[in-house]
């Protein structure tokens, strides 16, 4: 029997749910996260989650996180490395980790990559001025560290992140002067849009940032209307006073580590960009290396939790470890996952998975 541990990179909802499955089987698990707290994106979600009860809908992200972390307590087959970044991955499944100034190596029998995604930037004049933030960074400042990013915010992007972060800014007593979107309709859930609209935030389509204005920090922003090719239309410029420009223009999977060991990566716009080519077992083109959650395609915490369970179960089965009721659990998780993706908002993901050839 292979005594090396199962290593999970990333302790967001995907990594945490994978950990629980692995631990239950008695396998030795090493969970690594570069942050000082477990939970990934959940650490800053103070709002109630949508979704179904099975994935803790209606609870707040931070409370879901607590449940998931509590589920890992009491296992002596778990080793957690916080504030530890996996900086290198080798073909023999050895990982190079950096904790503070110290390097160490872990050899794994199987690796579950659950590194999530990074926020996309937006090119415009002066986008490096202090006061231009990604939405996730704003959320971390506010909800994790209790720091106000500014007093008057322009939000860019009408996906759920832009809508929800706008709402959270208002809850922190910060004015959201406007939310603009380049496309011609709101891309997030209408319920989230209506929620900020009724508190007075104008939501405007076909608009984006032309440039940020300010000497040492953002003092104002110049917006302009976009044509159907998303090109700015001269003469439509509009100046708005604000001290913060918050960008919620999408996420890109963090696949760099997998590229180091030659995992096949393919570009699928619907899934957020470069994603690993996984099979229905969430295994990449390198046997024993699995990818689940946002790193395998931008979706939701609810789907990441289910994906983590499926990936972990297959990792165990492939390693020859018996899993209680594996078949029936896998079938019901697949059904839940499919259920979540069924609606119009799941269309993009469905299309992406179809291109990947793994639409179940």
């Amino acid at each position, binding site marked *: 029997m292979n005594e090396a541990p199962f290593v999970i990179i990333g302790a967001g909802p995907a990594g945490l749910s994978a950990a629980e499955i692995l631990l239950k089987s008695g396998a030795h698990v090493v969970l690594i996260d570069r942050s000082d707290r477990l939970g990934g994106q959940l650490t800053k979600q103070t709002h109630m989650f949508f979704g179904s009860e099975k994935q803790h809908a209606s609870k707040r992200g931070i409370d879901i996180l607590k449940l998931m972390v509590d589920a890992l307590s009491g296992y002596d087959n778990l080793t957690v490395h916080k504030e530890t970044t996996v900086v290198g991955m080798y073909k023999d499944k050895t990982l190079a980790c950096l904790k503070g100034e110290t390097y160490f190596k872990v050899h794994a029998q199987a690796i579950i990559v659950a590194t999530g995604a990074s926020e996309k930037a937006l090119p415009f004049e002066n986008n490096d001025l202090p006061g231009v933030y990604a939405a996730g960074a704003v959320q971390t400042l506010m909800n994790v560290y209790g720091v106000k990013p500014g007093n008057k915010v322009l939000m860019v992007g009408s996906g759920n992140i832009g809508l929800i972060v706008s709402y959270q800014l208002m*809850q922190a007593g910060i004015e959201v002067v406007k939310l603009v979107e380049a496309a011609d309709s709101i891309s997030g859930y209408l319920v989230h849009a209506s929620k900020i609209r009724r508190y007075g935030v104008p939501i405007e389509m076909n608009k984006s940032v032309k440039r940020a204005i300010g000497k040492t920090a953002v003092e104002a922003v110049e917006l302009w209307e976009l044509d159907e090719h998303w090109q700015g239309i001269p003469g439509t410029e509009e100046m708005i006073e604000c001290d913060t420009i918050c960008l919620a223009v999408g996420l890109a999977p963090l696949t760099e580590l997998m590229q180091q060991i030659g995992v096949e990566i393919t570009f699928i716009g619907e899934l957020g960009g470069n994603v690993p080519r996984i099979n229905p077992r969430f295994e990449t083109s390198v046997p024993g290396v699995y990818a689940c959650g946002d790193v395998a395609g931008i979706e939701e915490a609810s789907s990441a939790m289910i994906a983590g369970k499926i990936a972990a179960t297959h990792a165990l089965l492939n390693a020859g470890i018996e899993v209680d009721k594996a078949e029936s659990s896998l079938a019901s998780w697949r059904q839940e996952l499919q259920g979540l993706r069924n609606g119009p908002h799941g269309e993009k993901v469905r299309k992406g998975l179809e291109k990947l050839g793994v639409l179940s």
Partner: protein
Amino acid sequence: MIEKTGVAPSALVKKEFPEKIVLKKPKAVIECYKDIPCNPCETSCPFDAIKVPDDINHRPVIDFEKCTGCGICVYNCPGLAINVFQLKDDKVLMKIPYEFSPLPKIGKQVNVMNRAGEKVTEGVITKVQNTKKHNKTALIHIEIPSAFLYDAITIEVKPHEA
């Protein structure tokens, strides 16, 4: 239009309301206009009044006969898309979800806003429920003039004051 602004036009809003005679008793009105994978409204209702039929992506459907207007779904809906309305004499009694601090005080006169965030009238806070089970989404009771039944949706929150 709602896809571009987030504001439901009044024709759409009115379709979600029961007839006025039904509103002699408090009833939940659900404004969840698009299919999303979500169902806490259904699972939280102790009276089995809300169904998300067949597929979690479908829109919820309410049975006004079963609904008691208790307000439980109001603070369990992550979209804050449900409010309770009741017509009483020349007033509307509303129960709305509220997640800003400080919470308004009972007896306070407040500005009442429409779905576009504009002030439409004034109202009085009659009750504030915020126990552990509300889990930080308070249930605020407001009394407003009945003429604004289809316009009123929330109370004003001023930035920097919160």
